[in-house]
């Protein structure tokens, strides 16, 4: 197998790697934002439940959690390893994203909330129109860090037999006895994806910046 064939073989996994990321990140974002809001505004009981969730999830290695979640999900519904793995990664990421958004919401400040309530906005309206638009902007830099992590952690679903970049690299490396080349190519692909993600997010940060703030 020639060098180019190896490259092409591994490149075919990009679609799956990107797909896993594009499921895990936005799903993790939705869960993370909701949990952050519950943590802050949810009242004592719900807030504590969200706090425990965050502490436990962030206290375990992602690969261990991936296996546990995979067997819970795949054991209860009929679902492909691809989907089970992506959803598991989303759940893992949500605990980190929750902390990112919690910090962002808190740094918007109580004054903004008070001013919004003072013109008659409900708590929900205040969060929707005043707090979140500012918090989302503040969250972009730390979130881009998490996005890079999720791109890289998408390689973990390799352990579930999903044919993404790492899985294909490992396979072709073993078959051609060129593991270093195969993993090197995989490394370059991951680096490229992370680089693109960071670039896109710094553009987003620049475009959404509040003038003179």
């Amino acid at each position, binding site marked *: 197998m020639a060098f180019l064939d190896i490259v092409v073989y591994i490149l075919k996994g990009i679609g799956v790697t990107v797909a896993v990321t594009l499921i895990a990140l936005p799903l993790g974002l939705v869960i993370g934002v909701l949990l952050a809001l519950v943590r802050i505004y949810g009242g004592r009981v719900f807030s504590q439940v969200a706090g425990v969730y965050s502490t436990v999830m962030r206290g375990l290695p992602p690969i261990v959690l991936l296996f546990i979640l995979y067997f819970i999900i795949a054991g209860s519904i009929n679902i492909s390893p691809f989907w089970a793995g992506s959803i598991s990664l989303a759940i893992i990421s949500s605990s980190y994203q929750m902390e990112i958004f919690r910090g962002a919401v808190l740094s918007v400040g109580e*004054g*903004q909330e*008070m*001013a*919004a*309530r*003072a*013109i*008659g*906005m*409900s708590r929900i*309206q205040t969060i929707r*129109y*005043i707090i979140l*638009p*500012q918090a989302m*902007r503040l969250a972009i830099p730390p979130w881009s860090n998490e996005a890079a992590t999720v791109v890289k952690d998408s390689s973990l679903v390799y352990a579930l037999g999903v044919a993404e970049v790492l899985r294909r690299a490992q396979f072709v490396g073993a078959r051609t006895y060129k593991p270093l080349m195969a993993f090197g190519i995989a490394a370059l692909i991951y680096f490229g994806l992370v680089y693109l993600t960071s670039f896109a997010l710094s553009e987003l940060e620049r475009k959404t910046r*509040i*003038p*003179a*703030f």
Partner: protein
Amino acid sequence: MKKTILRIENVSKIYGETVVLKDISLEVKEGDNVVLIGPSGTGKSTLLRCINQLTSIDSGRIWLDDQEITAPGVNHDKVRQHIGMVFQDFLLFNHLTALDNVMVGPVRVLGMSKEDARKKALWELERVGLADRAGHYPGQLSGGQKQRVAIARALAMDPRIMLFDEPTSALDPELIGEVLEVMAKLAKEGMTMVVVTHEMGFAREVADSIVFMEKGLVVEEGAPNDIFYRPKFERTRAFLWKITELYGEHDKDAPRKEDEE
């Protein structure tokens, strides 16, 4: 007889063991401008926050027009729509332009169409002399301009009463005048106002009545001339003596009657 807009009856507020407000009673009539003065930490700001229910009271009752707003089951969001509030540190929404800051209430809270709200917001900005700054973000405005936008934001809700919580305390001395001018203009137009301030010039010129508070109590209440020149209590006299000494310079910047014409 002028209509009573705001009636506060025996309101008390306790934080832990500290009594912040002790049995406060106060009545504000339509078009009146009531100025609250007193040393810091005497509950003036807390009283304002209790009026629009940003802080809950521990006992007593408050009426706005003929509705008891402290009664159980009253929708506080609805009540706040009718009470404008201006804060010491402006608290403009950082991510919105001056225009959007003023529009967001009418659009989101009152359900006004964007087009109507835009017209209304521009008119309110005109009222505070900032129509030409409509597209500016808070970070692009001076402190005095920010506070005037904050006043326009409150006015856009067509409030029954406006509360001002030390509106000029965070401003550089040269910017205080423009804010006080807007407030004096509002008072002249007949807006009902309760103002917490240390600007004694403003209090003397614009207030219909002055309430002197100390340690959570209303010590003395009366017409500006009585409070300033014939205070009944030694504590009022001592406070005024101290404050005019400290803020005496500011009095010169306060809007005078002849400047307004």
